[in-house]
């Protein structure tokens, strides 16, 4: 996966800003994408390109269980969120629904990656290449079951 970075240097980016409450009634995925990140970054939908990555701090996706949040990001083109940590329901929604990859990175990678950097993510090697800065970071490997669900393409394709 190759793409460029949209970086939000903050912790606790919650589902109320990823996809605000008034849009919870919407279940058309393409329509939802138009409102992604609206509570934090009004220009997100103009800026985001297919294949982009979001980079953020700890506890990304905290708040509600709305699957609208990973759906809106996914249908905006986001392939993975690279964060210091994730809130649990956002994490499992992203994986089980096969919307995007929640990738945990460490403090040094988080600090080093800049907005608009070009990255290449290789989950088979647990590696993130920063093509702009010519550096390689390690990502935290997925737990066994999570890796299998990702490989299967979501929970419904996974055979326990």
């Amino acid at each position, binding site marked *: 996966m190759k793409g460029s970075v949209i970086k939000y240097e903050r912790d*606790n980016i*919650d589902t*109320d*800003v990823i996809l*605000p*409450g*008034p849009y*919870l*009634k*919407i*279940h058309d*995925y393409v329509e939802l994408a138009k409102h992604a990140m609206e*509570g*934090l970054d009004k220009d997100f939908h103009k800026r985001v390109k297919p294949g982009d990555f979001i980079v953020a701090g*700890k*506890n990304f996706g*905290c*708040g*509600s*269980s*709305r*699957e*609208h949040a*990973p759906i809106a990001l996914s249908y905006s083109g986001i392939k993975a969120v690279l964060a210091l*940590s994730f*809130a*649990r*329901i956002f994490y*499992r*929604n992203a994986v*089980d*629904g096969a919307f995007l990859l929640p990738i945990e990175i460490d403090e040094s990678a988080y600090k080093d990656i800049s907005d608009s950097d070009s990255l290449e993510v290789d989950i088979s090697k647990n590696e993130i290449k920063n093509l702009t800065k010519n550096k390689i970071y390690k990502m935290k490997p997925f*737990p*066994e*079951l999570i890796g299998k669900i990702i490989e299967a393409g*979501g*929970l*419904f394709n996974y055979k*326990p």
Partner: protein
Amino acid sequence: MLNITEKILARASGKSKVSPGDVVFVNVDKVMIHDVSGPGVIAVFEKLKKTGMKIDKIWDPERVWVAEDHFVPAADKISAQNIVSLTNFTKQFGIKRHFKYGMGQYGICHTLSHEEAMVLPGEVYVGGDSHTNTTGALGAFAAGLGHTDVAYVLLNGKIWFKVPETLFFKINGKLPDHVMAKDLILKIIGDIGTDGAAYKTMQFGGTGVSEMSVEERLTLTNMTTEAGAKSGIVEPDQKLRDYLAARGVTKYNEVHDDADAQYEKIYEYEGSKIEPTVAKPFSPENIAVARDLSSVELDKAYIGSCTGAKLEDLRAVAKILKGRTVKIRTEVLPAAISIFRKAMDEGLLKIFLDAGVVVGPPTCGACCGAHMGVLAKDEICISTTNRNFPGRMGHVESQTYLASPLVTAASAVTGKITDPRDLK
């Protein structure tokens, strides 16, 4: 050596023992969807059908129940259509327990879970809503899931969980009269942070909790979500048995901690030392003592939601408002029709109306910024609800202070954040 959560998950996964970190598929006893997650699940079903999957029945319609709460009364054409879709869904799959807006009992899903005893001690309960944790106060494992996971449960009757580590919160001694469970849980979230219990279970015990009513315990477990917890739980006791018996339920399989149950960490609080506490914008962890915020001027007070509009919450509000009038716009939305009725029978609604308050129908409404009283730019609200992230209750530049029903009502009277003890 297992604690209550581990024992419930071991039983539900057919194992004699599980340990924190184990990933297990557990059999689910009850599942809930509402007018946001229900249509979300319907969308997942449609997506699956497009891949060739045949879906003509669900796992067990008897174990599924449905609430209409977020966008009722229908806020607009889309939310009206969602209710129609939900109704068609329950008809198609033979789900009988659908609490419909305007047809007898209805209300916020988490409130119905206890008011109607939809979930029983020892059960595994999942819901398409993050505050599903609330119901853990009934001695059940209760956790929120997204649409794909709930769809999976509806078709398979099971779901994966990583067995959580348990943080035990031991509350020593009763809370003072001017303090509520809301103050305590805000204090705890302030101490451990919004990811302080991420992926973990928060268990509450000690004499402070055994002295507490079931409804107050529900406030504690409700806001474990705001600390990032997978679930919150309280061991069953006589108070819970009485609460369930009053709802006609006496048969269930209680689960308790083993005598040598293990917890990852034990936190101790002295009940008598808890102060009226408020979470400032824009995070539930951003707490302050109410008295330190007495200069904050407010535009509005909101008394509603699964967190802060149960019967005892309304009684607390009435205790403050009796014989007084509000200085700012104040809204009371009881969390279920059964609570609305009890509040009417006890004369609470008259106290509210006499105080100048508007009383609305049960709905999640403005708590999640959906409708029915959302905030404008720069408006400042004190609220008995659970979250105050930017834009949570309306405009991203509105501000919400989270507080107990007592503090919220006292603040409604003065127009500034007020400790109930300081009310003349």
